[in-house]
């Protein structure tokens, strides 16, 4: 269901078959691990068994002597990076830390940290060789939890990390695990709370969780005799992968070509590189192409996760249900190196509401876990869990309807956020209204131990840079080349925008994702940006084609091009002359060469996306197990280009959020070893755990996009933990403030209440 005006587009809003569908359904699509090169070696990465240890020495001689071993690498093979800060598209990265994460230097900072790698004729030989590498470790005490790591006497991970604030370090600051502090204020928070009739202040914790993409990381690299390096890999961003690889192995960016293979999920976790620099060094040393595929355990132990957190949120409201003040103190686990999404966490905690006075303080803290990475609306899910359960508690105490409270206090155009800027046109309230008016919310929920909860979430959505090239073919089709790797069907969404602008069918566009030598710079497939920003580039390209097609028609008709116009998929000239797009395409060579349009986007920034969710749960009070009975998500998609894939993003995000809410977590033992690095014990939802996910697409067009697109990929993961926590409270009367809300915790809470 789409709200808003009636259909004004021919292609946008329809559901064409995705262009890459048949390849993916028949097993023909080539993912990263599917490439086969002549003479290809197989690489294995040896990983630290310790969560925190000095590496005193590495002896690779026995491994090198094993027949079939072709190359071995350690951090000694990588150039020194000192402390350079490099912009890598999505943000600034300390190259020394990135390098040390790819291959541990003098210290292993988490269990699973790469310490050496081997390339051999077969994967089995490489595995045997890796076991022969002797490493002398001096184990150090690990620190696994964010508040513990902030203490002065905590084991120190990185001696080059000192707390920065607004990018600068105070001179007297000592090295610590606290890498950064953020502070945002709006108005006078003390005065704000003084106006409150009710104040709720609660503490929350969330566990470390993983993106859980099904395809492990992989890279296949050929370091050719001419010094040119080709990388075939699954990545969310070929250009950032290219830059990271070049910087880490110390060659010119232009000497690296990244060829995007199909990618088996990313969710933010396939932006940082792990394997390409390692495979590149192994290829350079062996003179052969090297393929490395991570094992699933390494994917959990050494990639991914999104931070565990500690949060304190305080909200004040008046008796008549108006929020007057908010305060939050948030600490995120960065993992081994700085860089958690603490800043967006701080900026999102109060982002759904119009709060006059607010203050948010946040900390980025290193612990002995894998370096954290982006995961779908990074930082926003944690804080939504905290804020939205506090809001629910206020609604409960005031006896007001949770939807009406959100409508009354919701952020809208003109609302100033705690981080300062004022919202443009957004659809927060519209999503709450859509839930309030839904059959689900209006229906009666009956039965014991059942409850309903709602929650709202926000994500900024990124703009960033994209490029496309489109070529008109003589048969009236258009070949579309883009740089955005396609994780979820975005090729079709981009093709549809080109098709809409040209007035041709989606099927007449043939999209493909090109390597870094074949298309202009394009930022990552992340930040919910592809349909928005690459879409803008495609619209630009289409407009350029329109212009050239008008010129060609003018030449064919021998008229002034000013008398020709492009309208509704047709080129129309004087005296009722007209060509359909296909008719004209067949004739373009009569008066010129290829018609090629190109488009880039770089300055457009999105207005942000909101979603409101409604969930019914049933709690087994004897075991603490929570079953999801019914789930509805309403989300502002701006304009839904391909509704099926918009719904798909919403449904997928919700189910990831359900996993985060109920069962997903890293279990560490006291030595800092993850005990559940398998899909058996890291429990992502199966289809038997969830119901159908009902979707309501709300359309409040984003004025920053020609068709009003808002990115839809990330925000659906934000509300589920809070919505489920609120539903659990409605079902059995307990407030869960610790993720995941796994059966033992819910059971204990229910028993305690009894």
């Amino acid at each position, binding site marked *: 269901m789409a709200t808003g005006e009636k259909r004004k587009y021919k292609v946008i809003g329809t559901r064409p078959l995705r262009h890459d569908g048949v390849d993916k359904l028949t097993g023909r699509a080539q993912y990263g691990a599917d490439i086969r090169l002549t003479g290809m070696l197989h690489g294995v990465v040896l990983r630290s068994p310790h969560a925190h240890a000095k590496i005193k020495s590495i002896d690779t001689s026995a491994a090198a002597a094993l027949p079939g071993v072709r190359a071995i690498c350690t951090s000694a093979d990588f150039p020194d990076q000192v402390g350079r800060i490099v912009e890598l598209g999505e943000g600034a990265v300390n190259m020394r830390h990135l390098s040390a994460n790819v291959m541990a230097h003098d210290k292993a900072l988490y269990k699973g940290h790469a310490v050496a790698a081997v390339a051999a004729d077969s994967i089995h030989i490489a595995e045997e060789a890796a076991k022969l590498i002797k490493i002398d470790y001096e184990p150090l005490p690990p620190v696994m939890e964010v508040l513990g790591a902030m203490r002065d006497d905590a084991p120190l991970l990185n001696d080059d990390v000192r707390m920065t604030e607004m990018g600068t370090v105070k001179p007297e600051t000592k090295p610590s695990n606290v890498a950064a502090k953020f502070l945002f204020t709006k108005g006078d928070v003390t005065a704000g709370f003084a106006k409150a009739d009710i104040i709720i202040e609660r503490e929350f914790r969330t566990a470390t969780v993983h993106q859980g993409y099904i395809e492990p990381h992989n890279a296949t690299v050929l370091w050719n005799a001419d010094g040119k390096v080709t990388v075939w890999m699954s990545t969310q961003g070929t250009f950032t992968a290219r830059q990271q690889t070049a910087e880490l192995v110390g060659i010119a960016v232009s000497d690296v070509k990244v060829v995007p293979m199909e990618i088996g999920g990313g969710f933010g976790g396939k932006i940082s590189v792990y394997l390409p620099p390692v495979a590149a060094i192994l290829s350079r040393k062996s003179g052969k192409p090297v393929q490395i595929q991570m094992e699933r355990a390494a994917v959990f132990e050494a990639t991914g996760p999104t931070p565990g957190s500690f949060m304190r949120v305080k909200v004040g409201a008046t008796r008549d249900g108006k929020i007057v003040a908010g305060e939050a103190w948030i600490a995120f686990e960065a993992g081994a190196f700085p860089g958690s999404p603490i800043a*967006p966490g701080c900026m999102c905690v109060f982002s759904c509401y119009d709060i006059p006075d607010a203050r948010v303080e946040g900390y980025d803290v290193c612990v002995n876990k894998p370096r954290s990475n982006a995961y779908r609306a990074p930082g926003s899910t944690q804080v939504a869990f905290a804020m939205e359960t506090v809001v629910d508690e206020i609604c409960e105490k005031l006896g007001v309807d949770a939807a009406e409270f959100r409508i009354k206090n919701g952020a809208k155009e003109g609302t100033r956020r705690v981080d300062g800027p004022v919202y443009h046109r957004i659809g927060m309230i519209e999503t709450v209204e859509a839930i309030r008016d839904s059959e689900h919310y209006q229906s009666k929920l009956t039965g014991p131990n059942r409850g309903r909860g709602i929650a709202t979430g926000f994500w900024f959505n990124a703009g960033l840079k994209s490029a496309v090239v489109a070529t008109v073919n003589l048969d009236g089709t258009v070949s579309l080349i883009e740089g955005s790797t396609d994780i979820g069907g975005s090729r079709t969404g981009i093709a549809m925008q080109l098709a809409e602008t040209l007035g041709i069918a989606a099927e007449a566009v043939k999209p493909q994702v090109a390597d870094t030598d074949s298309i202009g710079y394009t930022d990552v497939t992340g930040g919910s940006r592809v349909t928005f920003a690459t879409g803008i580039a495609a619209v630009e390209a289409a407009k350029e084609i329109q212009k050239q097609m008008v010129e060609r028609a003018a030449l064919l008709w021998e008229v002034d091009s000013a008398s020709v116009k492009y309208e509704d998929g047709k080129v129309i000239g004087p005296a009722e002359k007209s060509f359909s797009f296909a008719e004209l395409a067949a004739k373009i060579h009569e008066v010129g060469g290829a018609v090629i349009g190109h488009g880039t986007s770089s300055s457009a920034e999105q207005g942000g996306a909101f979603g409101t969710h409604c969930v019914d749960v049933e709690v087994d009070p004897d075991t603490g197990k929570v079953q999801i009975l019914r789930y509805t998500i309403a989300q502002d998609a701006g304009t839904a280009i391909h509704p099926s894939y918009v719904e798909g993003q919403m449904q997928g995000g919700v189910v990831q959020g359900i996993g985060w809410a109920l069962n997903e977590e890293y279990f560490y033992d006291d030595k800092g070893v993850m005990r559940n690095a398998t899909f058996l014990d890291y429990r992502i939802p199966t289809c038997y755990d969830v119901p159908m996910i009902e979707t309501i697409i709300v359309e409040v067009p984003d004025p920053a996009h020609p068709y009003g697109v808002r990115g839809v990929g990330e925000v659906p993961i934000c509300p589920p933990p809070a919505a489920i926590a609120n539903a659990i409270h409605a079902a059995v009367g307990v407030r869960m403030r610790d993720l995941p809300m796994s059966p033992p915790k819910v059971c204990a809470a229910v028993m305690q209440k009894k």
Partner: protein
Amino acid sequence: MPTVYIPPALRDLTGGVETVEGKGQTVRAVLVDLEPRYPGLTAKLCIDDALRPGLMVAVSGTMSRQGLRTPVPANAEVHFLPALGGG
């Protein structure tokens, strides 16, 4: 005149004041205008004639990737914020 929002961590430079007014048609020009009144502000926000890594500027609610060159209309609001990516 454009209004510049001073990040809380830098308000010691403005005597605790949250917003200041600065003349100029770009972010750079506005900072140049502010520097004599609030010495050290530019150094806190910029390095090598560019915004510090990890910082972004938002003009009237829209994040910009153009850094110091970002145009600033009259009566605009200027915010300095952490750069954001996404998953």
